[in-house]
């Protein structure tokens, strides 16, 4: 709808600009600016201040003292970079494994679901909507020594004595995949919904095998959705620290765990903030590279230029 702004330059409205007239004209902005104010006050301001405070030292009672690089100096150590790398690896493996599981799941629901489609999707939503700590708790039941999994394996005597699942990196990755699977499945599902199956038939008619169709037609068309799903998993997984702590017996150190330990200690808060800023930056760079990577992958798949 075209804006119905009263054009200032026309004759009828050249009366002196009194405040009341202006107030009326900007009324809609007045109404709408609540969200903008909130966004600036509690989203952009904190992030910017966080950036600044990671470079500054404060007096005990909070007044600004001086710019310093001290906080960063304390964390520019090889171990901290390895921790960040570890988190990137965790994010990446989680994203890839959820893609491996999520894609066929979404594909089956969207295209082969038929009558059960909404029910199958509903089943995917339920775990996603309940508190994920409950699911961690549930996995304790399954993975521990006398747990369900060991009992089943023992019962079918695939193994003689219980395997050690809990408090291992396997348990951490398992839980990460479990929690982030819906994050990957749903975007792919919604784009598969809009995917028109005749494309597949067309490609088949042109003599492409099932695999070639998949590679040349299905995958590239869904690439944007896969990319959304990938980053919807990769970015939060990078910051995850509860799952590693609970499932991994707090034996592993990720960005989240480092930050949560620092921030809780008031004196060490600035270091925690500096570390957050550092890891946030690296995450952004990695995401950018991965983002470009998906395009390269797409070009390789289709041979096109997009």
């Amino acid at each position, binding site marked *: 709808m075209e*804006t119905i*702004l009263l054009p200032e330059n026309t004759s009828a409205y050249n009366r002196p600009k009194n405040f009341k007239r202006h107030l009326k004209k900007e009324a809609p902005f007045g109404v*709408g600016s609540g969200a903008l104010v*909130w966004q600036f006050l509690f989203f952009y301001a904190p992030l910017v201040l966080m950036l600044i405070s990671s470079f500054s030292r404060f007096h005990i009672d909070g007044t600004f003292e001086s710019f310093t690089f001290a906080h960063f100096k304390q964390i520019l150590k090889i171990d901290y970079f390895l921790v960040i790398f570890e988190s990137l690896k965790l994010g990446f493996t989680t994203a890839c494994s959820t893609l491996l599981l999520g894609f066929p799941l979404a594909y089956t629901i969207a295209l*082969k679901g038929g009558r059960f489609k909404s029910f199958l999707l509903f089943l995917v939503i339920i775990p996603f909507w309940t*508190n994920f700590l409950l699911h961690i*708790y549930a996995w304790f*039941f399954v993975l521990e020594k006398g747990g369900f999994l060991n009992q089943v394996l023992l019962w079918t005597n695939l193994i003689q004595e219980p395997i050690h699942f809990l408090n291992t990196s396997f348990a951490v990755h398992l839980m990460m995949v479990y929690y982030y699977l819906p994050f990957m499945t*749903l975007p792919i*599902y919604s784009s598969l919904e809009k995917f028109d199956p005749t494309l597949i038939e067309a490609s088949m008619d042109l003599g492409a095998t099932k695999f070639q169709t998949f590679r040349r037609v299905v995958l590239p068309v869904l690439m944007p959705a896969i990319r959304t799903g990938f980053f919807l998993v990769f970015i939060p997984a990078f910051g995850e620290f509860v799952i590693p702590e609970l499932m991994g017996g707090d034996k592993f150190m990720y960005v989240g765990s480092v930050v949560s330990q620092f921030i809780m200690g008031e004196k060490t808060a600035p270091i925690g903030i500096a570390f957050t800023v550092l890891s946030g930056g690296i995450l952004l760079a990695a995401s950018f590279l991965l983002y470009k990577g998906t395009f390269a992958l797409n070009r390789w798949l289709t041979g096109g230029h997009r």
Partner: protein
Amino acid sequence: MIPLFVFAIYLFLYVPIIVLVLFSFNSKSFPSPWDGFTLHWYKELFQSKDLWASFTTSLTVSILSTLLSLFMGVCFIYYISRRQKGESLVPLFYSNLIVPELVLAIGLVSYFSLFQVPLGFQTLLIAHTVLGLGFAIPILFVRYKELPPSLMEASLILGAGPTKTFFKITLPLLKPALLASGLLIFVISFDDFLFSYFCAGTSVETLSLYLISSIRFGISPVVNALSTILLFLTIPLALLFFSSKKGTEVF
């Protein structure tokens, strides 16, 4: 009909939940296998005062933050319906999804401590509303853009002023998106852990904080009972979400 591989994924998704629900009725706490049916843990669940205190805290925070986010979202859409150039401001809200929650949580904590704002119910509400806005505005905006502009023009030409048009035509047509995003924000805020962990301070305990402290302590079937109830509370919410056609497009 449904390939085995997908069936295995569903098994993977639901085995822990089934085990969880099953053992909420087991009389002895977990280490021993099935012992006998009992509702004892449910009784204990309803007696534990601070669990329900955290439940109600979480509930109030989620409801308030959902209403606040939707209210500001609708006002913002009103502004866009009156001034089209407002649409260029929408991308400002996309960043909520890009910035990892952890970074935002840390940002908020340091922001509050910088201004000596005491951590508590208010700071948690602020954090959740920021999250909510990040979902509400994009979803409402997409739905608003889907509406054919001729509808609003029809209402205008029939004599309704821009504000009346917004309330009589635009808003009712936004209802499905309002419902979908409202539910989404409520669930995300209710199940949120990160913001509660950092922004709630020590005076307020949300359900997630209660859960984490009880899980850190170890197994107690009371949590099983709680999970069963929460699971069955989520089902109607999810059904409601599905009923609004726009539900699935939200992703």
